[in-house]
């Protein structure tokens, strides 16, 4: 997917002023927050604290990320020992190329996909279409946005920006069936249409929530059951997963499953957790149902470059979406404004790192530093600190506007020279008081139009604290 992150400022402003978007976000925000809270209450009822679980989950992820070289080799060897094929892709284009080649080799005409954000990085559907291979998204949210020709606006609720009326319009246009107006009927209709695709597809493509090194398996977590369909019915199953997705063993999966669904949707567990392994010693003509072949595609696309550096902790991410669900900025603008695959705080870190800091530099700027994301992250990623580190890098690489950089230099110099600074402050407070023109509030501030675009500024009394304090001391 080509990044549109350079248009963040305009896109975000537009979304912030879009009444329909605001209505949708106002509706979903308390749901997101409330569901997670309830999920954690359930955990507490079993005597498990969030902090205790978070430490355990972080340790599991760190153990792998800190030694990824050996874990990759281990996973590869064990997956191969079960009969799976393991391929590697340096970037999104290579992912798309490998999958199209695999489809061609196996005479595939139709592909069914379960949700994979990595496939969005690779723009996989476009590649399949160009190769004349039909590929169908089967997660209901992904299916809706595929029909709409859009991109996901949330990593676990891709169509969260769509209303049921919009979905009904899309279904009428694409299914040629009578218009349904209620949500249950719409979901039912999609079930019927997609069921036929599941049954007729030759290849299933899924992501992986985790790659289990112990067993050489993919662990897949879904609610709709489409993940199971995609990995059970077609004869070929291709798993595309980032190289960082490995966990050591099945016990670790059990640990992570106590926080992943709760962080994402508040569920104590998702409806389906599947551990999928190649057929091992089973003969191909064995009557066991399942794909004849599993291929793992392990993808770098910028991940390896994060290892060993100040952004390595980002590789712990388990894609739960809690950071965006609790982010005041995400819940004010939705996901599309972020311009690439991943929105919200995790996207504001990943997009500059995986695409380009130059074009995505506004993303890590667009934060209040509130740390609501860091506080809810189930693997303890210090998201505000990572965004700040990106801002530092932006500054060091000279990517900020020269006036802004100069401004900070002058201000910092002044702040280190108190006499000059206080002289400036005395001028500034008088100017601001004058600007208020005797009123209590300044309504328009030329030097900060962003501020007074939405709010007034209380006028200062015209003399600084330091001045008033000096007076008081002198009066003794």
């Amino acid at each position, binding site marked *: 997917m080509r990044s549109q992150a350079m248009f963040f400022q305009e896109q975000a402003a537009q979304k912030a002023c879009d009444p329909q978007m605001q209505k949708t976000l106002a509706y979903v925000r308390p749901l997101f927050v409330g569901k997670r809270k309830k999920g954690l209450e359930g955990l507490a009822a079993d005597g498990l604290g969030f902090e205790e679980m978070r430490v355990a989950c972080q340790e599991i992820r760190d153990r792998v990320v800190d030694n990824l070289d050996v874990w990759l080799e281990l996973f590869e060897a064990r997956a191969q020992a079960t009969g799976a094929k393991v391929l590697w892709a340096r970037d999104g284009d290579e992912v798309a190329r490998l999958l199209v080649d695999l489809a061609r080799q196996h005479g595939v005409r139709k592909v069914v996909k379960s949700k994979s954000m990595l496939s969005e990085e690779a723009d996989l559907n476009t590649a399949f279409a160009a190769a004349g291979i039909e590929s169908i998204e089967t997660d209901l949210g992904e299916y809706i946005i595929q029909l709409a020709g859009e991109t996901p606006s949330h990593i676990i609720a891709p169509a969260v920006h769509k209303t049921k009326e919009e979905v009904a319009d899309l279904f009428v246009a694409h299914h040629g069936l009578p218009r349904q107006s209620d949500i249950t009927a719409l979901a039912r209709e999609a079930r019927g249409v997609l069921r036929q695709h599941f049954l007729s597809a030759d290849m299933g493509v899924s992501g992986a929530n985790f790659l289990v090194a112990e067993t050489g398996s993919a662990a897949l977590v879904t609610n709709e059951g489409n993940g199971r369909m995609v990995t059970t019915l077609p004869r070929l199953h291709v798993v595309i997963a980032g190289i960082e997705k490995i966990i050591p063993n099945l016990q670790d999966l059990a640990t992570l499953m106590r926080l992943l669904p709760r962080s994402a949707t508040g569920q104590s567990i998702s409806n389906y957790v599947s551990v999928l392994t190649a057929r091992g010693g089973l003969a191909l003509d064995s009557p066991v149902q399942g794909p004849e072949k599993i291929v793992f595609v392990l993808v770098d696309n910028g991940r390896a470059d994060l290892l060993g550096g100040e952004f390595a902790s980002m590789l712990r991410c388990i894609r739960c979406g809690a950071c965006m669900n609790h982010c005041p900025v995400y819940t004010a603008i939705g996901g599309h404004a972020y311009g690439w695959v991943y929105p919200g705080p995790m996207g504001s870190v990943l997009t500059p790192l995986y695409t380009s800091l130059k074009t995505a530099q506004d993303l890590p700027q667009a934060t209040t530093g*509130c*740390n609501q994301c860091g506080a809810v992250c189930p693997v303890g990623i210090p998201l505000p600190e990572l965004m700040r580190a990106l801002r*530092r*890098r932006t*500054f060091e690489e000279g990517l900020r506007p020269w006036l802004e950089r100069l401004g900070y230099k002058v201000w*910092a110099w002044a702040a280190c020279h108190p006499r000059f600074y206080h002289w400036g402050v005395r001028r500034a407070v008088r100017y601001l008081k004058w600007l208020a023109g005797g009123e209590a509030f300044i309504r328009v501030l030329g030097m*900060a139009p*962003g501020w007074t675009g939405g709010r*007034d500024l209380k006028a200062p009394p015209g003399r600084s604290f330091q001045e008033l304090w000096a007076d008081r001391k002198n009066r003794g």
Partner: protein
Amino acid sequence: MRVALFVTCLVDVMRPSIGFATMRLLEAAGCDVVVPEDQTCCGQPAWSAGEADAARALAKKNISDLAGFEYVVLPSASCAEHIKNAYPELLAGEPEWAEKAADLSKRTFELTSFLVDVLKVNEVPGDFHGSITYHDSCKGLRKLGIKQQPRQLLAKMKGVTLREMGESEECCGFGGAFAAKFGEISTVIVDRKCASIRESGAEVVVGGDLGCLLNIEGRLRRRGDPTRVLHIAEVLAGEGQ
């Protein structure tokens, strides 16, 4: 007990009354309050913008200015958090400075935390009659664990009725330069805060960080909402009536 009062650059410029209220509270609690004359800014705006060199220069300046005081107290959790957490991080590569930064970090406190956790005050000098709702500012809440301290102090004031707002822990959308850089986004966020304040039915919204308060008050006025906005120091010192 010799205490340095670091009023913060925002209070110095925008609302000196908070500085004087803080002084009154500290003196009433028996502190010998000193206002270091050369103080300017803690450097957080530079650190936040990614200008690490400027932030480092200011960290060193302040470490030098604030040496020799038993405690340093600020009427802002955000600035206190910067001194406590960012200075050691900024100076980690310079052992001599790192040690000084760690020392200053231990001596630095946000006002309500200082009054409750260090001085363990039993009474506050001011008087206030009315209903108050308290906005928890992000850095204080999530980085310094400041939640009960201001409430405990308000509870010592007989005339105060505390009416908690919904989502008091939600960000107000200030975020320093954020509110100016991304005004439209900030407005959506602060609107939620204004709605929570209104729903609380309180006459006054109180907080511990002037940045948040300027943002909230500015938006309340633009919406035509007359709810008063006060700093916790002003209320506790009795300057809010």
